[in-house]
């Protein structure tokens, strides 16, 4: 989508959003990071005198967790399908084609068993929907503990049917206020040549039964990134498909089985300092040279309201266009205030149990990072962009850890405690 074309003349916001997304895609693909700004949606308050008062009621109901809110949002039972005019034919199932596969997956708690409904879309694609079965009916138990059937027009996704490969495979996450009620339902349709499905999640290893047509389904308690799910599909001819869910170089598991973590890098100002003859782009702006200050903190991998976050540590790379070198901090975060007024870099650990972590950013000349501590040597995975974090439990102190940084050429630099940090420039 080029920057000058207008594709939505009646909705400029869509054009602007498309341009912003494309610019971000290209920036992300090049490995560069722009200045970090709070990811907030700026909503202009509207006059309560408008007829949108009524819409406000509905928004509140959507946001509330009461039974009334759920009832209104889901508009009763059965949970209705979207209007056909809102969904393309590729995603619209033919009602008569829908059938609930006989496989059942036990719920990790006391909930009804999980099942997969298969259908064909109007254009011949294979579609599936994850749900639960109660009294022979297919639906979902909501957060209000009420079971609602799912109309046949509701699908999770559709894909081209294949006979010796996965047509559909995914991990459906059903969120909840209480972490014990969160479910990840791994499911798929992989054709009659599918022979075995093996799932690994941390120490858990499970052989998932395969039904007719290569249908499989299994349910886990928790979020994919906390579990670190890897699924292997083995076919009759011996080939294996591997599908990870919630596994990423950017996500690290919690040492005590809690929520997964990630490092979050940010910087203020332009990534490459510039001097401009005039304001705006392409007006005689040239790189000004000099180092760029980058900071990093660690926090839960999943975005939630009011998460705990660590103190931010900062460093400088001499050439921001080609980062070399590294910096990191070693911190033990303990329960404390939600935030420190006026200090953006301070921790906001709130009531989370203590954690000790090594976290920072490495440049292109760093080939490996290892941490020696209780339990032995741990190899640290470095995320794209160079950020990393290694998290330890509440019994580990910073003094227990030694960090080994291996550089290209083979030289190893060893540190106990922080390395190459700078005092961050305070924001005005």
């Amino acid at each position, binding site marked *: 989508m080029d920057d000058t074309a207008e594709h939505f003349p009646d909705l400029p916001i869509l054009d602007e959003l498309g341009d912003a997304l494309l610019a971000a895609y290209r920036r992300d693909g090049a490995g560069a990071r722009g200045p970090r700004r709070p990811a907030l949606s700026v909503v202009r308050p509207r006059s309560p005198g408008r007829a949108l008062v009524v819409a406000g009621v509905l928004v*509140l109901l959507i946001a509330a967790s009461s039974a009334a809110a759920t009832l209104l949002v889901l508009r009763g039972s059965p949970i*209705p399908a979207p209007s056909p005019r809102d969904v393309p034919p590729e995603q619209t199932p033919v009602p008569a084609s829908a059938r609930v596969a006989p496989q059942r997956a036990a719920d990790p708690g006391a909930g009804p068993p999980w099942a997969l409904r298969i259908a064909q879309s109007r254009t011949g694609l294979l579609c599936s929907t994850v749900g639960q079965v109660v009294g022979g009916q297919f639906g979902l138990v909501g957060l209000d503990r009420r079971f609602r059937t799912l109309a046949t027009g509701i699908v999770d996704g559709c894909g081209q049917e294949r006979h010796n490969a996965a047509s559909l495979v995914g991990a459906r996450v059903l969120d909840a206020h209480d972490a014990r009620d969160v479910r990840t339902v791994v499911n798929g349709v992989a054709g009659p040549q599918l022979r075995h499905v093996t799932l690994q999640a941390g120490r858990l290893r499970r052989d998932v039964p395969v039904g007719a047509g290569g249908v499989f389904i299994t349910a886990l308690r928790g979020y994919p990134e906390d579990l670190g799910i890897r699924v292997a599909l083995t076919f009759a001819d011996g080939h294996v498909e591997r599908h990870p869910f919630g596994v990423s170089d950017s996500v690290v598991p919690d040492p005590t089985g809690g929520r997964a973590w990630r490092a979050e890098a940010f910087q203020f100002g332009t990534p490459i300092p510039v001097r401009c003859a005039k304001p705006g782009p392409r007006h005689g702006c040239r790189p000004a040279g000099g180092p760029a200050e980058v900071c990093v903190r660690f926090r839960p991998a999943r975005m939630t309201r009011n998460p705990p976050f660590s103190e931010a540590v900062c460093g400088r790379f001499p050439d921001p266009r080609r980062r070399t070198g590294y910096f990191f901090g070693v911190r033990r975060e303990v329960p404390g205030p939600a935030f420190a007024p006026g200090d953006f870099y301070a921790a906001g650990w709130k009531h989370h149990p203590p954690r000790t972590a090594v976290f920072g950013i490495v440049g292109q000349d760093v080939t490996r990072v290892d941490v020696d501590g209780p339990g032995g040597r741990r190899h640290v995975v470095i995320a794209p962009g160079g950020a990393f974090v290694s998290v330890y439990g509440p019994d580990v102190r910073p003094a227990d850890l030694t960090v080994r940084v291996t550089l290209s050429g083979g030289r190893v630099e060893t540190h106990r405690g922080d390395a190459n940090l700078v005092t961050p420039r305070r924001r005005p």
Partner: protein
Amino acid sequence: MSLDADDISRLYRSHARAMLTFFARRTYDPETAVDLVAETFAAAFASRHQFRGDSDEEAGAWVYGIARHQLSALFRKGQVERRALSRLEVERRALTDPEYERIEQLADLAELRNLVADRLAELPAEHRRIVGLRIVEERSYADIAAALDISEQTARARVSRALRALAVQLEAAPQADVEVTDRG
């Protein structure tokens, strides 16, 4: 076929308008609908390597699967997840009044709004008043409690009862645009 940035952008150009309408009709809120479109395509870019189709048609089906997931997350959590957008560091401005009204028009929200307004008028006076204090005047529960000379806990309970009564009224209303086929 693997997807790159330009492919995702082409998908956006093809599907953004219809997806915006889809979201607006399910959330009743244009701002939330735009947020969901943005998060859907940000998430599509983040997971582009997982796409295993061979055609534009399959790519469209795939991105709608992501859209449905975003909608489910909204219903469960009560807010739009902005994880993918946050990672891409994308922000957007607020809608202008013409844009807001255009999205409402596309999603035919006026009809729904009239329905809700009618049902509000049918509520008992006490329910109507407390919904007005909470929604129209955006008063805190502490303020409502002081205004009605009741405890804050009682104020919360009365607002909840009033909204439940409204929800019951709406559920009883004819819903001509809803497909209520079921196959147990």
